[in-house]
């Protein structure tokens, strides 16, 4: 099971791969859409890659609740527990 810091670092890597954004700009309080300018299709790619990386399932209906990077970290940590 990964710590929140490890999940954040892993997510930052995935976001960087999909969008080219610097990993250090992916911070807990950043909104995926408003701050990181990630559209719904890129978000889905990030979600699928995160599922694979962290061995969790993130249902479609859950994706809309993941507004910030912190929301995603919390969800993944909970799903791994």
């Amino acid at each position, binding site marked *: 099971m990964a710590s929140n810091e490890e999940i954040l670092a892993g997510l930052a890597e995935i976001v960087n791969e999909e969008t080219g954004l610097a990993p250090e700009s992916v911070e807990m309080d950043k909104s995926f859409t408003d701050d990181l300018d990630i*559209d*719904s*299709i890129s*978000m*889905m*790619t990030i*979600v*699928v890659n995160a599922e694979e990386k962290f061995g969790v399932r993130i249902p*479609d209906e859950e*994706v809309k609740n993941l507004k910030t990077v912190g929301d995603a970290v919390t969800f993944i940590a909970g799903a791994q527990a």
Partner: protein
Amino acid sequence: MSTPALQQAPLREYTRIYGVGAYRPEVIVTNDDVVQWIDSSDEWIRQRTGIVTRHRAPRDVSVIDMAEAAARDALASAGIDAKQLGAVLVSTVTHPHATPSASAQLADRLGATPAPAYDISAACAGYCYGIAQADALVHAGTAEYVLVVGVEKLSDFIDNSDRTISFLLGDGAGAVIVGPSETAGIGPSVWGSDGSKHESIRMTRSLLDTRDYSLGALATPAPGASEGGAADEAIDGAAADPTAERAALWPTMVQDGPTVFRWAVWEMAKVAQQALDAAGITSEDLAAFIPHQANIRIIDEMVKQLKLPDHVSVARDIVDAGNTSAASIPLAMHRLLEEQPELSGGLALQIGFGAGLVFGAQVVVLP
């Protein structure tokens, strides 16, 4: 009493595609046209969909007109006479009559009567469903040559103010002829459905809702109007204002984009791989990849998931044609062969997927 010996149709070992035809309507709708109806920009549309233009048919051009043009082109390209057709299959979800079918009238216009004719309702997988059917009919000895048409006039079922799918959609028709072959030309079809996700791409209402709405309007005529006036006004208003009124009266397409994107890429990449495996080949053996032209980002992500080698030509007709549902694969195939005639005789992986949800894929030898 002895049982008489029953004759069954002789099986044919192999089938292939003989020719491909296309019809692209003349009206071209640009992103600048579209942004008048949705609060968006050319850049936003290109970035999310890859689409720059889409073709749309004028009011007086029907699904059957478009199908006829593509079918004649395919017959000429295959060197087959319409009288040789043993079946006429039309894949469409936009022929505006539940019955009679578009296919029977098409067969008659082409001079193929009395060929059996039926429509296939499998949305964006319709063309691949048609190939699966045609392959089986020829294989089984039920028909010698089969016409498969994918045709859509989606512009009749869009709401210009919708931001989920309407701005992606275009009109058009593509057609092929399937017939017997000396060598293998159509790999096994991998096809299926998942109706549990029927709401993810759908029409906003049924025709019964439209009927009830119209009757409701009839029952309460506008003040001062003669009986029936309100309904007439609403319908006239809908024609004049393609956004608000029309959306209230008429079924139009909507989708849950992110859900469809996830399914289309990660589930359909598995189906595409199964079609390669069933055909006994690998992606190294492909000359072309012709996926349903739904969204360029689905196409690009599928290419990534399938790890297609660089030598494989990938159809990206969507940039100019938009998403034409059942017509998109034969239209894209037609264009690839026009631009790269050396692909003829090579192997192409084709995959359609869409509302239902439904999907179908095959590896075929390009005509």
